[in-house]
């Protein structure tokens, strides 16, 4: 339903998306990547809002940048918070329905607002809505034309846990109904709940693609870097190497340790310090953030 072939997008000297290719069919596909990885740029190209510098983007076999009709088959919930703030939620969604040529815009707008659990007849302008409510207005707008392809850019941002659960259930319902959903997130746990198909994008490149559980294993098995502060760095480092607990050690003001067996290292570090009679002051992971995971995935390609 969606195909991206060797797509590159550059803004002057800055390459936002670099030679990305993938195809996506019905169901949910999560696009995982840190902020600034190129997810939104990729989504903008899918919707035709931006033209690729190189490569080809197709939605339902057509180019949304030049094909007016295919835009009626796409529902987008953009990342940015902007809405026509003076309209009520019903007016906003109803106008979107009209712009899509929906036969009964008011009825359809009411249906999708109810679907995302927003009060249908609330006369307040959306400008006065909370972040979570605005997010749901965007989702309702994306759904109002019953699109074949839904592109949802960080749709769970700003929602409380109950709303998140409800939205994820809703996405799963839509995916099971045969819609193609592309959902971006920079939060690993969110992606875990969205389904099994994952595209990982980092530094503008497709770092990994496939089943979420395989990807999770890959992430857990990567080498980890840990900072250790002890009284006698050299003797402690020698002991760790001797016991085969680390793959590499860098000795500076603190020790920086590389290991692929984080659990084993964690279990042994305190007993080793005790055996040597050195004082263990700090053990802290240096690369536990998602950025590091993505960097690893990019570098291993």
């Amino acid at each position, binding site marked *: 339903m969606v195909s991206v072939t060797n797509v590159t997008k550059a803004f002057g000297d800055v390459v936002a998306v670099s030679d990305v290719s993938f195809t996506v069919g019905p169901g949910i596909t999560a696009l995982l990547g840190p902020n600034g990885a190129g997810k939104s740029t990729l989504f903008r190209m899918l919707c035709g809002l931006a033209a690729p510098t190189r490569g080809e983007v197709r939605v339902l076999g057509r180019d949304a940048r030049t094909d007016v009709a295919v835009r009626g088959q796409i529902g987008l919930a953009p990342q940015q918070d902007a809405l*026509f703030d003076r309209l009520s939620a019903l007016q906003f969604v109803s106008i979107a329905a009209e712009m899509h040529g929906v036969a009964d815009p008011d009825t359809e707008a009411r249906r999708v607002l109810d679907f995302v659990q927003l009060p249908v007849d609330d006369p307040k302008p959306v400008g006065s809505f909370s972040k979570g409510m605005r997010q749901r207005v965007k989702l309702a707008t994306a759904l109002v034309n019953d699109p074949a392809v839904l592109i949802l850019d960080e749709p769970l941002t700003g929602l409380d846990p109950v709303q998140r659960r409800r939205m994820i259930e809703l996405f799963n319902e839509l995916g099971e109904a045969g819609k193609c959903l592309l959902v971006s997130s920079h939060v690993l746990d969110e992606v875990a709940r969205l389904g099994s198909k994952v595209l990982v994008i980092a530094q503008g490149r497709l770092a990994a693609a496939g089943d979420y559980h395989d990807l999770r294993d890959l992430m857990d098995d990567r080498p980890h870097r840990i900072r250790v502060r002890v009284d006698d760095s050299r003797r402690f480092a020698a002991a760790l190497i001797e016991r085969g607990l680390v793959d590499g050690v860098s000795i500076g003001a603190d020790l920086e340790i590389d290991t692929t067996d984080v659990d084993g290292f964690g279990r042994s570090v305190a007993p080793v310090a005790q055996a040597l009679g050195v004082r263990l002051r700090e053990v802290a992971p240096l690369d536990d953030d998602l950025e590091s995971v993505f960097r690893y995935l990019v570098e291993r390609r």
Partner: protein
Amino acid sequence: MNGSVPSSRAVAITYRVLLRQLVSRGRIIALSLIGAVVALLGWVVGRARDDDVFLPTEFNDQIRLDDAVATVTNIGFTILVPIVSLVFAAAALGDTREDGTLVYLWLRPMKRWPIVVGAWLAAVTVSLPLVVIPMSVSAYLHDVGSELVIGAALGSVIGVVAYSAMFVLLGLFVKNGIVWGLAYIIIWEGVVAAFGSAAAKVAMRGYTSSIVSERTGVEIDIGTLAQSTAIVVPIVVAIFALWFASVRLQNLEVA
């Protein structure tokens, strides 16, 4: 839902949405005040000059008419008409582009030109009463006859139509369209057009002023065009600007 939305419907929907976005209390009050000042000037200038008892009546009438035309063209067509048009037209699509709401117009199965025309109509709808009413009242208060009132009203309508199209286009090209538009009004319409009839032909003020000049018979340096030319050329400029804005919108990278 397959296929594109009919263009007439797309114009109507865009018009409705953007009209609602454009009308804010602050804008209306600020621009109404400028209009009120222009109308007040008409009243002041119309009464400020005592007739010269040594001149024949027709001479005194002609001097009063000259003063009235100068006020209407210099204040009205140089300040009120372009500035009111700028505020609304540059914002019509420019604001949506800057705040990110353009995506809700762009990503719809609608051709681009109805979006541009809808935006332009919304800007014209708000600008016209804020311009035509004070300009007509100002001309009326000068108390120099109906031709000035007709000329001021007609020139205002033509000015709003053309400026609005130009500034809708501007809003799709630059950020801070108001600043760029003001620079254009001051430098091009204000200074360059004042260099005489040749220069005035490349400024909209030359055309709006020509309408008043033709109707009242008062010669103005920058208003030497025939009335038909002064009406047709701004309309052609508006059509070209709207077409160009449609092309620009099609090729725009929407954030």
